[in-house]
């Protein structure tokens, strides 16, 4: 094993393992992985020094590695060695994402890196000194990293590019280390084509339906008795100046819990929770225009099990956090308390006004939960229909409802609590002077909007949380009791959950200008909805649900146009890989492979020799026959002599022959040599 080749392979593997290290929180994983690579190469070097066979090296070292893995994880996983090793990966896949860097959870990653590096080291150290082994090992590690982290660890593909560049460096430079010949442009050109294809594919191919290994294992789901925090809005309002928590990060509303299930009497939070990062994706896909936000939160007087977050949380610095996969509500079974400090990364849907203007809402079973209104009184249904009369789009309906709910109604922290139909009817239609008539907390405003929106077919839910607050001099945003609120969110196809603010109308969601534009148009055509008679018509299916699917079709994305260049480029990528594999196989075949490679080059140059020509005859035809004749003699000897020959300089001669042929072939005809499929058919 030459030092250069081994060093190149080790560096390639260590770089490729970088995304895999993103599967664990903290910075301990990658040094461990790099160490595993070094240990594996060291083991192979020692094994060769002691003249152990390849089989003995692989079996012995692999067994020692597996045994070490068992001893590391046996404290955390019950059972014998087989059970411990078998359950280590499912356990990792059902842990939080990123996983806490505990020994038992780190073990499968370290073991995998060690075993891959061991195989690669053996391939590099062998007689044939594979140049394909290290890139293949790197691809395995990189793919594992992409699977473990759902592609987040290398979202921009920088590590992928680094791996490709390093692999190309190895093929071009390490392969030619023994030769003084200058580097030809063929392999780098192929690498550039591959890079372009990779970059384009990475940018084009949809990742929304990407393979998720965590779907293969059933995460542990906890059924928790949870309380609805809506009634607490009044108590938080009463402790207006009390610091509930503080946040460092962008100005965003802090979410405490999402309420999606409405019984007609009250809202209910989900009671099934799993480890964050391990549970299934949400029932409704996230919006196409989203951004990630990282915040630091410090709990003050807030108590209970709900853990504040921003957006849809994807990771947190706490290891024992549970999440409701559909709503993104975080729960801490041990409870939150003063002084609890943690980081959260969340995804926030941020569609712009133009996106929403023509947005549709989905249909089907997926949204049934968000339209459910058991026993909806006809008064509310009729009121809702009147409110959205003359609206043309779901967005206009939501804006109209937001306006109708806010109309002549006032926030009042002292108003009676409750989310039942009766409380909402009282809130909306109660005669002036009655308790709760026209007055309510954010609970009534949000619930009234949600009920009316569901009545007209808009998928809606209610979020309990805290409104955005300005940043203080110490960089923290101090959230107090007075900031506690609730708001409704409407789901628009392709754009995700969009918040509305029936309390003030402008504090969240779409811009005020956009809403004003809608309201101005509606004002000229829409009369104020009247309180319907108690014996109004029965509830009918809301207009949005009655629309055919064609009307709900998603706006056409033009990304598919990029597939036109991507598909040929991906084909070129595959061809380049197949050609590289063929060349590696030929390299292992010594003089025979070198001669076959020369025949490949002749084929590419349009000089395919006749079937009856012998190797020396063919050699005499090439532009620079001297090295070709020597190579033909070596190949003939390798093929037809009774004894095997030792090392020879056949590949050096082959490269000389190739250079001679290239000199007489115009450059434009050589452009696609690296991806030409014809040699693959030989």
């Amino acid at each position: 094993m030459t030092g250069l080749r081994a060093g190149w392979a080790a560096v390639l593997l260590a770089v490729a393992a970088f995304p895999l290290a993103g599967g664990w929180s903290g910075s301990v994983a990658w040094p461990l992985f790099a160490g595993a690579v070094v240990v594996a190469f060291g083991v192979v070097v020692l094994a060769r020094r002691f003249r152990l066979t390849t089989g003995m090296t692989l079996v012995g070292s692999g067994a020692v590695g597996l045994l070490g893995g068992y001893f590391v994880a046996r404290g955390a996983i019950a059972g014998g060695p087989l059970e411990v090793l078998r359950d280590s990966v499912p356990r990792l896949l059902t842990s939080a994402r990123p996983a806490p860097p505990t020994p038992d959870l780190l073990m499968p990653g370290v073991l995998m890196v060690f075993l891959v590096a061991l195989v690669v080291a053996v391939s590099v150290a062998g007689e044939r000194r594979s140049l394909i082994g290290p890139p293949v090992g790197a691809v395995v590690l990189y793919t594992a990293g992409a699977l473990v982290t759902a592609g987040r660890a290398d979202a921009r593909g920088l590590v992928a590019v680094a791996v490709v560049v390093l692999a190309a460096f190895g093929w071009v430079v390490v392969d030619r280390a023994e030769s003084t010949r200058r580097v030809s442009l063929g392999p780098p050109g192929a690498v550039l084509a591959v890079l372009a294809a990779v970059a384009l594919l990475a940018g084009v191919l949809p990742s929304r339906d990407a393979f998720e290994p965590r779907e293969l294992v059933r995460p542990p789901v906890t059924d928790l008795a949870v309380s609805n925090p809506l009634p607490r809005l009044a108590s938080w309002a009463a402790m207006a100046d009390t610091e509930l928590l503080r946040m460092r990060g962008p100005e965003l509303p802090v979410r405490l819990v999402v309420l999606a299930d409405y019984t007609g009497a009250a809202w209910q939070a989900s009671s099934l929770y799993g480890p964050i990062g391990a549970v299934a994706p949400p029932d409704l896909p996230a919006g196409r225009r989203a951004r990630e936000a990282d915040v630091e939160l410090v709990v003050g007087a807030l108590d209970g099990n709900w853990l504040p977050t921003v957006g849809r949380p994807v990771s947190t610095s706490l290891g024992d956090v549970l999440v409701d996969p559909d709503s993104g509500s975080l729960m801490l079974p041990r409870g939150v308390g003063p002084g609890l400090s943690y980081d959260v990364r969340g995804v926030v849907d941020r569609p712009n006004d133009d996106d929403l203007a023509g947005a549709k809402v989905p249909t089907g079973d997926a949204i049934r939960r968000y339209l459910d209104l058991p026993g909806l009184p006809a008064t509310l249904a009729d009121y809702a229909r009147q409110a959205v009369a003359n609206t043309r789009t779901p967005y206009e309906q939501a804006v109209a409802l937001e306006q109708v709910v806010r109309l002549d109604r006032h926030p009042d922290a002292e108003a009676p609590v409750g989310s039942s139909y009766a409380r909402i009817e009282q809130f909306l239609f109660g005669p002036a002077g009655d308790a709760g008539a026209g007055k309510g907390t954010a609970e009534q405003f949000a619930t009234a909007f949600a009920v009316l929106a569901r009545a007209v077919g808009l998928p809606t839910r209610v979020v309990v949380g805290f409104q955005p607050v300005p940043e203080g001099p110490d960089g923290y945003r101090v959230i107090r009791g007075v900031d506690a609120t609730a708001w409704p969110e409407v789901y628009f196809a392709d754009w995700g959950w969009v918040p509305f603010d029936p309390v003030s109308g402008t504090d969240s969601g779409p811009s005020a200008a956009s809403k004003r534009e809608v309201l101005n148009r509606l004002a000229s055509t829409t009369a104020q909805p009247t309180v319907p008679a108690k014996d109004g018509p029965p509830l009918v299916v809301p207009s949005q649900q009655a629309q055919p699917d064609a009307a709900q079709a998603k706006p056409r994305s033009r990304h598919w146009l990029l597939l036109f260049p991507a598909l040929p480029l991906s084909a070129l990528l595959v061809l380049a890989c197949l050609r590289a594999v063929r060349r590696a196989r030929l390299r292992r075949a010594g003089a025979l492979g070198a001669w076959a490679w020369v025949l490949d080059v002749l084929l590419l140059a349009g000089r395919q020799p006749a079937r009856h020509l012998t190797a020396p005859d063919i050699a005499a035809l090439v532009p620079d026959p001297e090295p070709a004749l020597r190579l033909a003699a070596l190949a003939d000897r390798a093929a037809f002599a009774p004894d095997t020959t030792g090392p020879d300089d056949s590949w050096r001669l082959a490269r000389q022959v190739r250079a001679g042929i290239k000199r007489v072939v115009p450059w434009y005809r050589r452009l696609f040599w690296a991806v030409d499929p014809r040699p693959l058919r030989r």
Partner: protein
Amino acid sequence: MTGAAIGEHEIAAFQALHKRVGDAVETALRGKREVVDLVLVAMFAGGHVLLEDVPGTGKTTLARAVAGALGGLSRRVQFTPDLLPSDVTGTSVYDPKSGQVGFRPGPVFANVVLADEINRAAAKTQSALLEVMEERTVTVDGVAHAVPDPFLVVATQNPIDLDGTYRLPEAQLDRFMLRTSIGYPELVHELDVLRPGSGAGRIGTVPTVTNPHQVAECARRLATLHVADPILRYITELGTATRADDRLRLGASTRGLRALVRCVQVYAASHGRHFAVPSDVQRLCGPVLAHRLVLTREAQLAGATTTEVLAEITARVEVPRPTPQ
């Protein structure tokens, strides 16, 4: 003699010997090294050569120069229509002194026998050569007499002047390991031959560089040279193709293919290799096989020759290439 395959060091020694003999012969026959090498291939392969050429091109000179370089006994037999078989093989003669009938060897008892204008003798006389060429023995009055080892018959015939000739039968042609022609020399060599005082064409100037025993031993060792299976298959495919060709009434016989293998072994060794390669087969298949093929009447009328037909067949059969499996 060992049964092991010939090794590289022996090959180097043979290559040197082959070069010495060739150089010695070339002192008499200038500019015809390829022909000389072919004759030497036949000699070391234990075969016989048919030189088909017009008069005056050096056929006799070549045969005698080979015999001179070999250091063995050489005899020349001028075949004529009235030549009897016993004139070639020898006969039993009564010795009045001893009162016994003894065998008097004919000119065939030599290391190199030049059968000049062999097609001028009657078929009966030509067939007298059949036994000795194949069996290396002459049977007279029921007694077999072995000819010296090595035994090389270099026969010549004139393809132009066919008056008063008897065409060699296929069976006899098949006894010749290879057929070749010398042709006229190139200008530079012809000038050399014409220059007064030149040694060209003078057999006396040919140095003896080996001996019959050494040649015979080399021939035995060269028979063990490695010929890989793909090459043997290639030779078989060539033979099969000649038998399947519509223009040929008679394709290559198994004896012919065996002769090709033997020649390939010697040719490879003469080039310093202890193994045969496909190029050897292609170089030798014409001289070794062409004279054994018989054209159909239609092909003859069309003006085809067996050499052309064989060249086309060789260009049709796929050659084994040195590529990985």
